[in-house]
C-alpha cells in the first residue's frame, strides 16, 4: 500500500472512523483491480508471436464459444418470443388496439432488448463462466506459467482468440435470437388463437425501423467484449486452488452481468437519443 495512503488512514495521526478506513481501502483495491484490468488488455492486444497458431485457436473458440451457444440461445429466444406475444395479447384485449400491434410488440421487444441484452446475460452465464474457469484452472495448474516460461505471451494467446471469436460470432447469435424469437411469437400467438397469422405477419412488418437492428448489433459487440474481457480477467489472476477458480467463475458472471446492465442504459441513451 502507498505510504501516503498509509499515513492518511493512520488513526493515530488523523482521526477517521473505521468505516472511512474501510471505504478508502475498498477504493484503493478497486483502483488496483481496474489498473490490472487495463494492463491485461494491453498484453492481450500486443502483437501475436505466430499468427497462424492464433488463427487456429480462434477457429477452435468459434466452435466452443459460438456454435455451442446456438442451442441455448435458440431455445430461450423461442420461448421469450412466445411469452412476449401472449403477454402483449392478454394486456391489449381492448378492441381499440389493432391486433397487429401484438406482432409489432413482439418484433420490437426482441430486436431492441431481448436479442441483445437478455442473450448477453445468458451468455455471461454460459460463456463467461466457461472462460473464467478454463483460464483459472490453467493458472492454478501452472499451465499459464508453462506458456510464460516458453516465452509465449499467455494473455494474448489465451484471451485474444476468445475475444475475436465472441466479437464476430455474437452478432450472429443476436440475429438468430431475433428470428427465432419472432418465430416463437408467431407459433404461440396463432396456436393460442390470440392473433391470426396474417395480423402477426402484418404487425412484424409495420413501421419497421432498420436502425433498431444496427442498435442491437452495436450493443451485442460491446456486451461480447465485456463478457470475454471481464471473465478472462477473473480467471487470469486466480490465486489458489479449485475453490478460488469457482469463486472467479461466479465473479465473472456477476460482474459481467452488472456491467452489461449498466452499459445497456448508457448505450441506449447514446444510440437512441
Amino acid at each position, binding site marked *: 500500500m502507498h505510504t501516503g495512503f498509509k499515513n492518511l488512514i493512520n488513526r493515530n495521526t488523523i482521526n477517521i472512523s473505521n468505516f472511512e478506513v474501510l471505504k478508502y481501502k475498498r477504493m484503493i483495491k478497486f483502483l488496483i483491480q481496474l489498473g490490472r484490468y487495463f494492463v491485461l488488455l494491453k498484453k492481450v492486444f500486443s502483437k501475436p*508471436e*505466430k499468427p497462424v*497458431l492464433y488463427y487456429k485457436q480462434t477457429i477452435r473458440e468459434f466452435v466452443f464459444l459460438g456454435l455451442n451457444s446456438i442451442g441455448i440461445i435458440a431455445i430461450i429466444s423461442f420461448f421469450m418470443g412466445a411469452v412476449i406475444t401472449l403477454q402483449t395479447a392478454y394486456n391489449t384485449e381492448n378492441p381499440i388496439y389493432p391486433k397487429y400491434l401484438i406482432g409489432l410488440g413482439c418484433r420490437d421487444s426482441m430486436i431492441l432488448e431481448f436479442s441483445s441484452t437478455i442473450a448477453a446475460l445468458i451468455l455471461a452465464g454460459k460463456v463467461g463462466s466457461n472462460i473464467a474457469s478454463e483460464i483459472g*484452472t*490453467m493458472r492454478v*495448474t*501452472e*499451465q499459464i*506459467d*508453462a506458456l*510464460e*516460461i*516458453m*516465452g*509465449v505471451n499467455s494473455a494474448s494467446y489465451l484471451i485474444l482468440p476468445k475475444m475475436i471469436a465472441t466479437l464476430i460470432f455474437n452478432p450472429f447469435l443476436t440475429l438468430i435470437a431475433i428470428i427465432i424469437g419472432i418465430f416463437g411469437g408467431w407459433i404461440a400467438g396463432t396456436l393460442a388463437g390470440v392473433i391470426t397469422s396474417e395480423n402477426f405477419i402484418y404487425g412484424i412488418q409495420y413501421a419497421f425501423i432498420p436502425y433498431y437492428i444496427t442498435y442491437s448489433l452495436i450493443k451485442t459487440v460491446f456486451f461480447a467484449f465485456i463478457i470475454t474481457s471481464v471473465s478472462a480477467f477473473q480467471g487470469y489472476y486466480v490465486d489458489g486452488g479449485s475453490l478460488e477458480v469457482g469463486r472467479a467463475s461466479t465473479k465473472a458472471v456477476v460482474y459481467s452481468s452488472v456491467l452489461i446492465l449498466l452499459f445497456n442504459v448508457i448505450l441506449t441513451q447514446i444510440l437512441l437519443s
Partner: protein
Amino acid sequence: MISIKNLNKSFNGKLVLDNISVKFEAGKTNLIIGRSGSGKTVLLKSIVGLHEIDSGEIWYEDLLFNKLDFAGKKKIRSEMGMLFQGSALFDSLTVEQNVRFPLDMFTDSSLEEKTERLNFCLNRVDIINANNLFPSELSGGMKKRVAIARAIALNPKYLFCDEPNSGLDPITAILIDALIKELTEEYSMTTIVNTHDMNSVMEIGEKIIFISDGVKCWEGNKNDILSSDCGILNDFVFANSLAKKLRKVSK
C-alpha cells in the same frame, strides 16, 4: 552457467528468500533441497522470472536476466525448459500436440522436421504409442515424461525441474531422476532441480544447496552431505528412523 547474487524476495512484507548467492554449473545436475515451505519453489520461479525479485542479481552467462526487458527475457526463455510439479501439460492438447507446441510456436521447421523431432523427444523419454492420448488419460509418471519431452523439444540450454518426483513411486522416481541426469550430460545443460526427496539427492546431486526458512544454509555435493556438520541439514537428511539407525551404525 547461472549465477545468483544477493537475491531477496518477499511476499506482503514477509521475507521468503534472504540474501541467496549461488552458482549453478553447466553440464551438472544442481539441486535445491529443503523442507516444504522453505522457499525452494520461490527461488526456482524467481530464477526463471516468474516472480519479480526485490533485490539481487540473476545472471545467465554474462546477461543480467532480471534487468532485461520483455524481448531480452524472451530470448533467454527460448533456451529454457521447465518441468513443473504438476507437469502443467495443456489439458486440451494431446501428448503429441503438447510436445509439438513449442516447435510450432518458435520454429519455422517443416512438418516432417517437427514430426521427426517430436518422435525423437517422445522416444527419448520412452513414451510409445501414446501420441493421441490426452493428459487426463496418462499416469503420473507418464505425465512427467511427456513434460520432460516438451521441455527438451527446443534443445534448451537450461532445464528447471520443480519437484519432479512428487507423487511418484520410488522406482518411477529413480527413472525420472536418471532421465534428467542423462539429458543434462547429453546436452550439457545447466539443470536445476528442486526436491526434498533424499533418493534424488543421493542419485543425482552433483551440486546441492540446502535452504531453510529462505536462507542458504549449506552447499556441497552428494558425497559431502552425509558428513556435514550443519545441524538443520542433518535433521533433514536423517529425518526417518532408518536413516538415523544407519547413521548410528556408521559412527
